[in-house]
């Protein structure tokens, strides 16, 4: 796989002043420079990633706090479903304020960073990611009091980032930015499961076009903000590790009565998509 152009990523990050790409660019720069040392380290890239992401903050075992469910072996490395679930009730005084999803051996390891307002309980997040090599997948939960916990799994997959080719580019272009929000009730938990789907190629910019002799430009979703009844529900900054047509399912405690979801999506080409969805009656 061709090495990502670190300079290009850094320039892009600086130009657009995006938090996540800047972070990833910095990580790649650090990782690139320390590549040799990384190869020899038994723990792989995680120490360097952790250093760049959290500095010398203590990261505790998250087994009792947060669960991560991943397939042991991915059937399709470009569409690997992952499920995150909380093991404690989210309250104003005690909640996860930030959630990091890290895929150690992906070209851009920080796949997503979630921000939560903390004013509402939520139980599950599901999404689909690309996995480029046999790797650890980690979820880090940063609480409102600063404590940070981590849970990790090992996933066997390869090539998910190097071949995110669209099966039908023409159809994809015609559908760019279209969204769906599917709602389902989870009766056992009084949860509302909202599955947001956005049509987007999420092109990584890591593929080389032999015809034009240039890298095929990156074109991916960089942020999704969801509001519910006028208040922020969650915000996520995403990167090239998220699969084509980003899909995020969020299981949370709804308010009674109808409401409205407002979704705003921004991508690296400067496009902005917004759509509103009614929240009830649910199926």
């Amino acid at each position, binding site marked *: 796989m061709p090495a990502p152009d670190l300079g290009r990523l850094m320039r892009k990050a600086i130009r657009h002043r995006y938090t996540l790409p800047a972070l990833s660019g910095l990580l790649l720069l650090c990782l690139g420079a320390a590549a040799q040392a990384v190869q020899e380290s038994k723990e792989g890239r995680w120490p360097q990633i952790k250093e760049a992401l959290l500095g010398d903050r203590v990261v505790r075992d998250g087994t009792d706090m947060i669960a991560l469910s991943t397939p042991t072996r991915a*059937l399709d490395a470009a*569409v690997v*479903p992952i*499920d995150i679930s909380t093991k404690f009730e989210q309250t104003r005084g005690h909640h996860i304020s930030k959630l990091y999803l890290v895929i150690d051996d992906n070209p851009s390891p920080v796949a997503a960073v979630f921000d939560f307002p903390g004013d509402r309980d939520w139980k599950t997040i599901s999404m689909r990611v690309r996995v480029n090599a046999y790797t650890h997948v980690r979820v880090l939960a940063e609480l409102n009091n600063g404590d940070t916990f981590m849970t990790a799994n090992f996933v066997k997959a390869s090539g998910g980032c190097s071949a995110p080719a669209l*099966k039908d580019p023409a*159809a994809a272009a015609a559908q760019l930015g279209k969204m769906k929000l599917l709602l389902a009730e989870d009766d056992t938990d009084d949860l509302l499961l909202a599955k947001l*789907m956005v049509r987007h190629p999420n092109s990584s910019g890591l593929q080389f076009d032999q015809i034009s002799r240039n890298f095929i430009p990156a074109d991916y979703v960089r942020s999704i903000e969801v509001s519910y009844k006028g208040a922020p529900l969650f915000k996520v900054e995403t990167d090239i590790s998220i699969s084509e047509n980003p899909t995020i399912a969020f299981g949370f405690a709804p308010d009674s009565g109808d409401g409205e979801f407002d979704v705003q999506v921004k991508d690296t080409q400067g496009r902005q998509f917004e759509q509103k969805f009614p929240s009830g009656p649910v199926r």
Partner: protein
Amino acid sequence: MGWIGAPQRLPIGGSMARELRRVRPTSPCDDCVLSNLTYKQVVGQHSYEETTVCDSIRRFAVFLLLSALAAAGAAEPAGFTEIAPGVYLRPGVQEVADAHNDGHIANLGFIVGRERVAVIDSGGSHAEGEAVLQAVRQVTDLPIAWLVLTHMHPDHVLGAAAFAERGIEVIGHANLADALNHRRDAYLNPVLDYLGERAAGTRVVLPGAQVAVGQDRELDLGGRTLVLHAYPTAHTNNDLSVLDRETGLLWLSDLLFVDRIPVVDGNLLGWLAVMDGLARLEPTIVVPGHGPVRGDWKEDLGRQRTYLQTLAEGVRRVIRTGGDIRRAVETVGQDQRGHWLLFDDYHGRNVTAAFVELEWE
């Protein structure tokens, strides 16, 4: 075709005479017990050739062998079968491509006209492409004018370099070049991996000529026309079929899988729609991309339809009940397992592909 041990011709005028015990200095039979037995044989009014009995026996044996081969038809090259007059097929093995089978997992072949030849698909490596070229040469000296690539998958396209090197025109669906351009490393790296040195020369070749959807392209092989038809997105977004007008043979390639589990890498619903159209055709012979040529190809088409519809209905059910990909992979289509080779290698990925397609319905 030269004889083994060509005799020397010694023009001699005058009378003929038999001479014994003249040893020819360059006889390949020097070690043979018969090598010292020579005789002169009349080959014309004024010349005779000097030869050994051994050479004569050998030449006669070669003559018999070639006669037998000629009687059997233009010799079928190793691995190839002439499935219709002038149409040669080399079937692929029903396995996942690996070092053991050298990537020879796809059906491929060639069609010989009166003036030129078209090859259909090139195999999974430069070496396999070379082997196909050699096979054509065993059948005919006619030039190969085209290599038709029926779709992008590596087991069909990665022998194309052997053809491109000889200036043979490579032709494919209008979407093929872009599709291959986006998949170079993804397709090449595994082959370099499992073949190692045996992959030498293998590279992705983009087609120079295209067939657009709605604009069939005819290839004139000299008194024999092939019709190339490009399909809307089905198995892939770059599927081509080849129709031989002379025999009514339709080469569907991976639009039809026989025995081997179909691979969804385009659009599931689009593929089902294309299959509806195929079911109405009446070709004399249908060549699938994997699996044997069978008279009851429509039954095979039906089995493929059953599989794809099972996928679609099962996935839709999971979507309706709020399930996600993992539930679909665990529950959809498990009853199809006994019907398909390599089920466990590909079914889960098919379910995933069907899911991400159908959840947008």
